[in-house]
C-alpha cells in the first residue's frame, strides 16, 4: 500500500496515476517505485480499478426521456419579447434589485458557491409581469445558495393557491433574490403539488435554477401568511426593514389593478442576518426543519459537508472580512430608498404592538440595522429572546434554518376576506 511517511503523502501515488502530480512529485514517486516494489502493485491495482469502472456496461437512458422532456417544453421567450414584457412597473423595481444583487454577490462568498468561475456582470432582465390572479398566498423571503457572483435579480414570486383546498393554510414562500427570471405561478404551483404533500410552515423547499450559466439552489421557507400577517409587519417595522422606494400612486394603482383592492405590496430588502432574525422570530414558524446536509462549508471552502448552522448567521462580510453594509443602507446611499416609513398594510394588533413595545406605526423612519451581535430583541420580556414562541406551546427555540437568507423581499398579501 502507499507509503504513509510525511515525505510521501497518501494521495500522491493516486495523483501520479492520474497524471496530476507535479514534476517534483513525479520524480519522488518514480524514485519510490524503484525502491518499493509493492507500490508498483498498487499502481497496477489502480489501473485495474479504472478498467473495471470504465468497463461497466452502458446504461441507456429511458426510451421515453426525450419525449418526456419535449412534452414539457414551452416556447422560449425571445429577448425582444422579454423586453416587451418589461413593464414600467418592472423597470421601476429593476434598479433597486440590481443594487441588492451586488450585496448578494458578496455575501454569497461565505456560503456555498456552486461554481467559483461565475461571471461578474449584472445583467438587466425583464421582470415577470405580475399575475392578474388574486393572490391568496404571499412571497415573503428568500434564500439562495448560489455562485459567488452576482446574478440577475427577480423581485417576486406570486403563488396562487386557487386550486388548493380552502381548508389548507395559505402559504407564503421565500422569494429568491438571485434569480434570472421568476417562474410562473403555474410552475410554482406544480412544484408545490409535486411535493406530494401539504407543506408545513417552516419547511424548506428547494429547487435548482441557473443564473448566469451557473447552477444555484434556491430555498424557500414556507410561511402561513394568514397566521403571520400581523407579526410579520410588526417585526419588519421593528427591524427597520423598509420599502426600497416609496410606492407611488402609479405603482399602487398598477398593483391594485392586478391583484385586487385587498392586496398591497411592500418592497423590501435586507441583509442576511436581518432576514434570518426575522424568520427566527416569526412566531408561526415553529421548529423549522434543519436540512440534514445543509449546503454549507465545513472543513473546506465550498465543501458539501454539513457545518454548524450558526456559521450561516455570521454577520455578512465580504471576502476581505469587511462588514457589509445592509442592503437598505446601500440602496439609500444610491438614492433608491425613500425616507418614508414602512407602510403598515393592515391594522396591527394593538396588544401585540404594546407587548413588543413598539413605537407607533409611523415611527422613526430611520432604518435600524441590528447586528446579530447585539442583544437579540425579546418579543416578550417574560420570554427569552433566544426562545421565541412556538406553536403548540412546545417552547423549544426555533432552530436555525441552515442556509443563509438574503436579498429582496416583496410582499404581496391579500387582506382577510
Amino acid at each position, binding site marked *: 500500500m502507499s507509503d504513509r511517511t510525511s515525505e510521501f503523502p497518501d494521495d500522491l501515488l493516486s495523483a501520479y496515476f492520474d497524471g496530476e502530480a507535479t514534476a517534483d512529485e513525479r520524480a519522488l514517486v518514480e524514485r519510490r517505485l524503484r525502491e518499493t516494489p509493492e507500490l508498483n502493485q498498487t499502481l497496477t491495482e489502480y489501473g485495474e*480499478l479504472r478498467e473495471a469502472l*470504465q468497463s*461497466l456496461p*452502458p446504461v441507456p437512458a429511458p426510451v421515453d426521456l426525450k419525449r418526456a422532456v419535449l412534452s414539457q417544453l414551452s416556447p422560449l421567450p425571445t429577448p425582444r419579447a422579454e423586453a416587451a414584457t418589461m413593464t414600467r412597473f418592472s423597470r421601476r423595481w429593476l434598479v433597486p434589485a440590481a443594487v441588492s444583487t451586488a450585496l448578494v454577490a458578496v455575501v454569497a462568498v461565505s456560503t456555498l458557491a456552486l*461554481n467559483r468561475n461565475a461571471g461578474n456582470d449584472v445583467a438587466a432582465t425583464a421582470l415577470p409581469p405580475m399575475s392578474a390572479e388574486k393572490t391568496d398566498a404571499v412571497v415573503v423571503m428568500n434564500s439562495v445558495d448560489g455562485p459567488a457572483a452576482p446574478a440577475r435579480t427577480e423581485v417576486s414570486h406570486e403563488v396562487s393557491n386557487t386550486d388548493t383546498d380552502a381548508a389548507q393554510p395559505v402559504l407564503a414562500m421565500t422569494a429568491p433574490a438571485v434569480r*434570472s427570471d421568476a417562474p410562473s405561478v403555474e410552475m410554482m404551483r406544480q412544484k408545490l403539488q409535486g411535493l406530494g404533500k401539504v407543506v408545513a410552515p417552516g419547511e424548506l423547499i428547494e429547487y435548482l435554477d441557473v443564473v448566469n450559466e451557473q*447552477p444555484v439552489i434556491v430555498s424557500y421557507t414556507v410561511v402561513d401568511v394568514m397566521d403571520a400577517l400581523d407579526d410579520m409587519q410588526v417585526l419588519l417595522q421593528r427591524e427597520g426593514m423598509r420599502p426600497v422606494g416609496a410606492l407611488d400612486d402609479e405603482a399602487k394603482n398598477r398593483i391594485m389593478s392586478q391583484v385586487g383592492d385587498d392586496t398591497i405590496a411592500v418592497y423590501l430588502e435586507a441583509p442576511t442576518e436581518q432576514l434570518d432574525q426575522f424568520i427566527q422570530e416569526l412566531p408561526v414558524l415553529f421548529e423549522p426543519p434543519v436540512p440534514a446536509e445543509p449546503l454549507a462549508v465545513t472543513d473546506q471552502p465550498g465543501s458539501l459537508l454539513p457545518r454548524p448552522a450558526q456559521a450561516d448567521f455570521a454577520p455578512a462580510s465580504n471576502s476581505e472580512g469587511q462588514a457589509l453594509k445592509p442592503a437598505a443602507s446601500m440602496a439609500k446611499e444610491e438614492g433608491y430608498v425613500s425616507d418614508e416609513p414602512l407602510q403598515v398594510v393592515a391594522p396591527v394588533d394593538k396588544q401585540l404592538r404594546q407587548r413588543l413595545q413598539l413605537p407607533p406605526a409611523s415611527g422613526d423612519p430611520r432604518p435600524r440595522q441590528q447586528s446579530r451581535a447585539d442583544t437579540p430583541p425579546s418579543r416578550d420580556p417574560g420570554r427569552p429572546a433566544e426562545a421565541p414562541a412556538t406553536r403548540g406551546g412546545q417552547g423549544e427555540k426555533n432552530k436555525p434554518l441552515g442556509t443563509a437568507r438574503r436579498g429582496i423581499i416583496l410582499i404581496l398579501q391579500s387582506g382577510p376576506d
Partner: protein
Amino acid sequence: MELDDRTLITRTLAGDSDAFGQLILKYQDRLYRTLVHMLGSAHDARDVAQDAFLLAYRKLQTFRQESSFYSWLFRIAYHAAVSSRRKHHAHRSLDHRREETGREPVDDSPASDPTQPLHRTEQQQIVHDALNQLAPDYRDVLVLKELEGLSYEEIATLLNCPIGTIRSRIHRGREELRVRLVRALEQEGD
C-alpha cells in the same frame, strides 16, 4: 447529417424544439449513465436528467457557449443530483423503492444485460455494488474522474472544492473501492 451543438442551440432558440430533441438524444445516454452511478438509482437518475434537460432548455438563451453544451448541461445535472440526494437523505434501497412504488424497480445493474457473459456480468455487478456503497463524496469524484474523464481541476471547479480535497477524495475513494472489491471477490471465491 448530425448537426453541431451550436447549430442545434441556435435552432432551438429560434423555436425549433426538434433541435433540442436532437441535443437530448445526443447526450442523454452519457448523462444518464453518470447519474445512475452517482445516485445509485435509475429512478432518481431519470428524474434528475429530465430536470436538467428542462432547465437547460429554459435557460438556453443565457448560455453563452463559452464551454461545451454538455459541460454546461452536466453542471446543471450534477447540482440537481446533489439536490436530489439531499432531499432523499439516504440512498434508497431497491426494496424500499419497491415498497414505495409497488413496482419492480428498473434493473440498471450490469447483470441484467443478457448479452454479457455470466462471469463478466458477475464481476460488473460486484463493481457496481461496491461503487454504490461508497460515501457520496468518494463516489462522485470517482465517477467524475473515471467515467466522465474530468481532470482534478475540472472536478474541483464543479464541486467548488480545492484541488487538494479532490485529490484526497479520489485517493480515499480508490482505496475504499479497492478494499471492498477485494473483499467481495474473496467472498465470491469462498
